[in-house]
């Protein structure tokens, strides 16, 4: 087999400390210039040609930014670029979303850091925390963007306070979860996830599927707590919790939703099977998750926070939401398609290939147009789907095909021997996929997935074509204003390009860093 194994002979699942460059020899500035710019006559000639060109370009650019640029259209419409036509009286929701989410993301990163550290302790390796320099070299573009927004385009203190709160809470979340004792790790996972979920609920309200995400965020905590139960308690808890869960499912069936109730009953039956098989801890987990679903639903109903409709979202806010939502939705579909493409059953393989090649063959815009014009016709929904929902559906179906190809690459990189070892141990094909192949394949494709997210993020600029005001198309609203008609176009375009660039650049740096850290592609 000529294919290189991921990470080669060494374990790819232990993060490699970033390779250091060769020790740089100390050069005086003069020596450095000679070595890098004038080492030969060709080199000198090139320097003499490109040097003035570079200086001129820098001069022109600086002049444009600081002297000639007419930035009023951006200056007076910054809020429009950020949140578009989002109702101004509901702005507190966006602000609190950002602040709460920062705490959650900080907490998640801290937890990740702490669990990596704890694992190193067990395996006896040295733990080298990622330095601030490394983070800075990845994320300086986003910091620059935020600073430009704050320093250049805001006159009030509100945005400063918001960013300040985000930073403080993010760091607080990171610090808290980093220093929390190992025993409380499930708690910090759940707490971080919960903060992120809650931040999203601030915008979309507590109806719909809110309970589902919330329970999902609680799973680590429930699982961790149950893992600590003594056998005697678990023996009693298992039937009790599953029974209560079933009761809740039946109540849901009668009172609110038939579908949710039926699914709940199926889950409850699975719990009963686990009780019968003697797997009491897992049974208790299933029972507690069902109970949590019921409690959270009731709780959310009591809160009754109504959502801000999708159709009100626009600007950078919409761009971000669509990119994240489509990636999250497309990921499971992509994984299934990749597995289907590698299936031993020809019919399933052919269908997966047909899907993948169809969506990869035509540009995204054709699917967006289809989404805008007739996607709703395929379904018999009572009320027509909103334009944003249809757009997200189209982007999701589209990017699932690309994710499938990425995951397929990861699957191919898992050596055949891994599957054989699984078969020889008596594991079933689904178990091998779940426990052996997918964890390795998905880990190997993380950098490529970040790359796919970048291109999806860039592709959201196409939403303007179907009349959704994302970040790029806000400029149409701006230049429709009396004061800015046909004025400062280059400036708004530059601003938009800078915004897209700042995020895409940071992510691409992060992707390169992950690639090095995971040792992907090393021989």
């Amino acid at each position, binding site marked *: 087999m000529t294919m290189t194994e991921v990470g080669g002979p060494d374990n790819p699942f232990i993060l490699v400390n970033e390779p250091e460059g060769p020790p740089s020899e100390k050069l005086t500035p003069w020596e450095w210039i000679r070595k890098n710019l004038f080492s030969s006559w060709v080199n000198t000639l090139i320097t003499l040609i490109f040097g003035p060109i570079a200086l001129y370009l820098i001069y022109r650019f600086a002049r444009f930014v600081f002297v000639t640029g007419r930035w009023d259209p951006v200056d007076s419409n910054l809020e429009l670029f950020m949140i578009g036509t989002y109702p101004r009286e509901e702005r507190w929701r966006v602000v609190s979303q950002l602040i709460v989410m920062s705490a959650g993301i900080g907490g998640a990163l801290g937890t990740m850091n702490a669990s990596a550290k704890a694992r190193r302790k067990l395996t006896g390796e040295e733990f080298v925390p990622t330095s601030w320099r490394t983070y800075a070299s990845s994320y300086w573009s986003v910091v620059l963007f935020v600073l430009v927004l704050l320093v250049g385009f805001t006159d009030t203190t509100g945005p400063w306070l918001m960013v300040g709160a985000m930073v403080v809470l993010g760091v607080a979340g990171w610090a808290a979860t980093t220093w929390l004792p190992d025993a409380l790790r499930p708690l910090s996972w759940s707490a971080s996830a919960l903060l992120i979920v809650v931040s999203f609920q601030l915008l979309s309200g507590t109806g719909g599927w809110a309970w589902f995400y919330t329970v999902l965020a609680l799973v680590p905590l429930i699982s961790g707590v149950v893992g600590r139960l003594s056998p005697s308690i678990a023996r009693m808890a298992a039937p009790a919790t599953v029974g209560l869960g079933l009761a809740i499912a039946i109540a849901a069936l009668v009172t609110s939703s038939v579908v949710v109730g039926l699914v709940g009953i199926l889950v409850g039956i699975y719990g009963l099977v686990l009780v019968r098989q003697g797997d009491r801890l897992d049974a208790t987990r299933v029972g507690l998750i069902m109970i949590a679903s019921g409690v959270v639903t009731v709780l959310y109903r009591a809160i009754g926070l109504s959502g801000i409709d999708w159709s009100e979202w626009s600007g950078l806010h919409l761009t971000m939401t669509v990119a994240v939502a489509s990636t999250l939705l497309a990921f499971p579909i992509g994984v299934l398609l990749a597995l289907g493409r590698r299936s031993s*059953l020809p019919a399933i393989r052919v269908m997966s290939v047909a899907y993948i090649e169809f969506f990869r063959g035509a540009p995204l815009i054709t699917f967006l147009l289809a989404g805008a014009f007739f996607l709703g016709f395929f*379904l018999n929904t009572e009320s027509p789907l909103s334009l944003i929902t249809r757009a997200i559906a189209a982007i999701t179906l589209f990017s699932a095909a690309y994710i499938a190809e990425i995951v397929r690459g990861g699957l191919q990189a898992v050596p055949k021997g891994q599957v054989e070892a699984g078969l020889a141990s008596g594991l079933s094909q689904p178990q091998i996929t779940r426990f052996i192949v997918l964890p390795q394949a998905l880990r190997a494709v993380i950098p490529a997935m970040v790359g796919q997210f970048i291109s999806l993020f*860039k592709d959201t600029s196409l939403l303007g074509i179907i009349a959704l005001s994302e970040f790029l198309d806000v400029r149409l609203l701006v230049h429709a204003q009396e004061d800015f008609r046909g004025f400062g176009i280059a400036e708004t375009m530059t601003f938009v390009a800078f915004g897209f660039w700042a995020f895409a650049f940071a992510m691409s740096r992060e992707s390169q860093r992950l690639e090095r850290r995971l040792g992907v592609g090393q021989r």
Partner: protein
Amino acid sequence: MLYGVPLMAETQAVQATRPPPWRDVRVLGIVGQIVAVVSVVLVLRWLIGNLFTNLDEAGIDRGFDVLNQPTNFAIRDANFDSRSPLWPDMVVIGVKNTLLSAAVGIVIAVILGVLIGIGRLSENWLVARLSQIYVEILRNIPPLVIIAFFSFAVFTFGPFPPFNPSSPPWQINLPGTDTTALILSNDRWGIPSIARDGDLLPFWIALAVAAVVAIGLWTWRTRVNINTGAPHRRGLWAWGGFLLIAVVAFVLLDTPYRWSWPMVSESGRRIEGGFATNAGYLSVTIALGLYTASHIAEIIRGSILAVPKGQTEAANALALTGLQRYRFVVLPQAMRIAIPPTINQFLNLTKNTSLATVVAYPEITSLVKTAIGNGKPAVQLLVMLMAIYLTFSLIISVVMNQVNRRFQLVGR
């Protein structure tokens, strides 16, 4: 059972016994496939059934005949008025424009991409840095933003003057003559082009002869090189011979081709002669060329770096000079790595020309979108549009397979 006696020796048939069907892996596999296919077909049937019902309810025609009726809109710079049908006239113009933009964009992307890709590995710090900055900026901005930037910030609202009788465009003459070489405005540009002049057949025959001669020279020099070891310089010989004959024929046949210079028409609204093009075309082509160049540069750089270090060391051990090392060892291997992803970039660029909808360049997607806006049925048109792009993809993947087959290393 006796010790040492084969368990099943008495049965002569050594075929494995068949298990009951519900436990037979082969039966299970077939049943699984049938279930999968049937459920997918059912879901598709349901979806398409819904589509048809909803279309009928909305009173939308779902036949493909509507495509043969007049489009009711005109396309500028093309022989197409509102009575022309959508199929095939509009499609032909659209596909032609798509390919025109893609082809020129690819040329820009390849030339720039290769230069910048090599530039990133330059020993000269300045060149390496400038190349890196180019790549890091262009690669991380959505192509649509770049297109819109060119269209709105550079052309429509940029420094160029409008084009109408009261405000003539910039006309740049050839130095020392009255001939206009360039016409620049915020909307349309005129550049010189090549026009035929008189009978072309003799000239083409002459070119064919030149080609044959060139091949002959190539073969002869190759043989000389193999037999005597003298440097072959076959490229020089072959191209030299070809160009010599071509130039002589061109002069003798009284210049069958000549320059066509652009000129502002008397009405002051149109460009006559030369190659007239509009801001939409320029924006799309230049923007996609620049954007794709950043990706190709990364491919080139990655491919050169991917050639194992040992190869360079081995070449050094054979005492090849720096240039020979590149020419015979590094580049051939880097090419093999670079070509498939580069072809993929060509396909991406072709698909990205669909972004021209925002700048009203009449390639196929924006024509289809206009037609839908004019009340043509969206379903049929978009199905047709997807089919067109799928055809492009199919052609590229056939090319790709051929290339891969040619470039694959022979190995175990």
